[in-house]
């Protein structure tokens, strides 16, 4: 990679205190535990994992909603988050976060025009006419007619609200957009058009996406690279096509095996992985996947690091044996 990465995480940790009686600290929930990651400009990086694996915390820590407990976040070459660091406000416009339903963040008492002007009023000194021109351009880009600017959120459909929410995020010209479960709760027929919209906007505005999702099929369709998370750590990372075709970490293998494949054999009859992820407040020693792993061996009592070959790496002591 000749160009410097747009986003770089170094040993990022986010721990939450677990409090008991009288607000006494009785433990630590390690939602993120030493994540290193770099994202190149223009790529779509998928973050997958089950609930509780820390994928949303990762997005929120990059965004600055949570302060990191340890480690650093670098964005466009500048340090933006580390413990005790105050984020420069200019970063907020260039780094945006899309919630599951961006339409839900519209004020029901405001016309859409006002909602769309708001981020520009806060972050820029543009005169009204220029702001208006800018939002008209973006509203057209998300596929809505100008006339909608006069309406209130309840007068348009849920799908249109979602588009307005996206327009609002794009109005500031962000470089990196974190999409947090953008398709969960959508019907497949709607999901397809939402994904097409994301692709279209990325090409038009030169965006970089961090695509957080638990839906493997969607990640496969959208992403250039995938990082698989398990209990606060990245256990596998690599080009999407490679990870899906030849997963290395036993957890990735299980995750892929669990997804139903229409036309294939029933996975419910052969699915082997037992149990559920352990409580992140009581992590097992060594490899976090050890208790559920079919390949667990004594060596797994030590925590594995990401073992990279080229762009593809897995944090597992035993994956090389499986390859032979």
């Amino acid at each position: 990679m000749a160009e410097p990465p747009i986003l770089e995480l170094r040993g990022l940790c986010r721990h939450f205190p677990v409090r008991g009686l009288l607000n006494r600290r009785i433990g630590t929930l390690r939602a993120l535990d030493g994540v290193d990651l770099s994202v190149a400009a223009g790529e779509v990086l998928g973050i997958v994992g089950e609930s509780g694996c820390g994928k949303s915390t990762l997005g929120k820590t990059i965004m600055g909603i949570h302060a990191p407990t340890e480690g650093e976040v670098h964005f466009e070459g500048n340090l933006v988050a580390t413990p005790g660091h105050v984020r420069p406000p200019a970063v907020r416009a260039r780094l945006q976060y899309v919630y599951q339903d961006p339409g839900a963040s519209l004020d029901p008492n405001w016309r859409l025009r006002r909602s769309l002007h708001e981020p520009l009023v806060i972050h820029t000194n543009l005169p009204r006419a220029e702001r208006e021109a800018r939002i008209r351009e973006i509203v057209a880009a998300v596929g809505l007619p100008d006339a909608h600017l006069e309406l209130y959120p309840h007068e348009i459909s849920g799908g249109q609200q979602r588009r307005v929410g996206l327009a609002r995020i794009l109005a500031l010209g962000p470089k990196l957009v974190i999409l947090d479960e953008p398709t969960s709760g959508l019907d497949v027929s709607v999901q397809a058009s939402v994904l097409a919209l994301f692709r279209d906007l990325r090409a038009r505005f030169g965006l970089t996406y961090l695509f957080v999702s638990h839906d493997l099929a969607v990640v496969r369709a959208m992403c250039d690279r995938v990082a698989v998370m398990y209990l606060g750590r990245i256990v596998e990372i690599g080009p999407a096509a490679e990870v899906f075709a030849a997963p290395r970490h036993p957890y990735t293998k299980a995750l892929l095996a669990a997804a139903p494949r229409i036309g294939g054999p029933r996975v419910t009859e052969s699915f082997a992985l037992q149990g559920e992820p352990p409580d992140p407040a009581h992590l097992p020693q060594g490899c976090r996947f050890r208790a559920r792993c079919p390949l667990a061996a004594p060596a797994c009592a030590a925590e594995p690091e990401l073992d990279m070959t080229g762009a593809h790496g897995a944090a597992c002591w035993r994956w090389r044996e499986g390859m032979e």
Partner: protein
Amino acid sequence: MSDILTVADLTLGFRTEAGPARVLDRVRLSVRPGEIVGLVGESGCGKTTLARAILGTLPAEATQVGGGRIELAGSDMLGPGGGRGVRGRAVTFIPQDPFASFNPLFRIGTQIMDLMRWNSPRRDPAVRTGWYSPARRRADRAAAIAMLEAVQLPQPARILRKYPHELSGGQRQRVMIAMALLPEPRLVIADEPTTALDVTVQAQILGLLRRLAVDRGVAVLFTTHDLGAAWEICDRVVVMYAGQTAEIAPREGFFAAPRHPYTHLLLRSLPEEGRDPVGIPGSVPSPLRPPPGCRFHPRCPRASQVCTEQAPPLLGEGHLTACHHPVGGALGDTLDG
């Protein structure tokens, strides 16, 4: 063998302030004993309304039945006192969100025994009082523990002493499955039971549900919007669109050669390697003003004049389709015919 559940030309709606909402329109459905039927459709297609109509739990004052019948285990669920003695015994229910269905203030064991007091297969249905003999209580408790073991919960006696919040999502759904099977029903209605779960837990739960249903010969009506889950568990698939039955087909035929254009588009909307998902333009019509004729015609690439005038009948042998212009060949077949 005769069907355990028959829904014949059910037309049903709700009175609303904006006028009558016609939610179900001549819906047909049947479930044979021991069969797993998937009821597939997107949000707003009426699948949950249908499930609740079968259970007889729709609000009576707002519901208008326009015609048709629901026959479950030989009793008419729409008749006077419909479903009494059937609901909770011959037919049970697995909800989408098991957490919302438990009372957070009572232990799991209390809630299971409460169910068994009234709906245990060992209870004499002639006795109308809540008398719970110690002998029956012991037998029911043993059955509950055996069932919790069957749903692969470790240490069932300890589970009985826990509160719902102490269990994980997957464990709660296992307890729900156990509770649905304890009355030894002939039909279980599962309303999107795995939507809230992670994919590895979903695979476990679907496998469990299928195994238990097959072993015990219990029929399952499984509503879902997830075609992948339907592929995993079903023997037969029923597709609904905007309150109408679009297609009924055995699982293999359904996925390999769907005939209804809606089913076709739905399958092509799934993200898959090597092609972009297409989606379906437009949106599901409001039940307040459903389009005349086939309700899919405003979004259908094959629609013609007849589709706007006449609702197509559900035709076919084994693989039934309600369409004036069904798709002939395999999935690659063009829709613009």
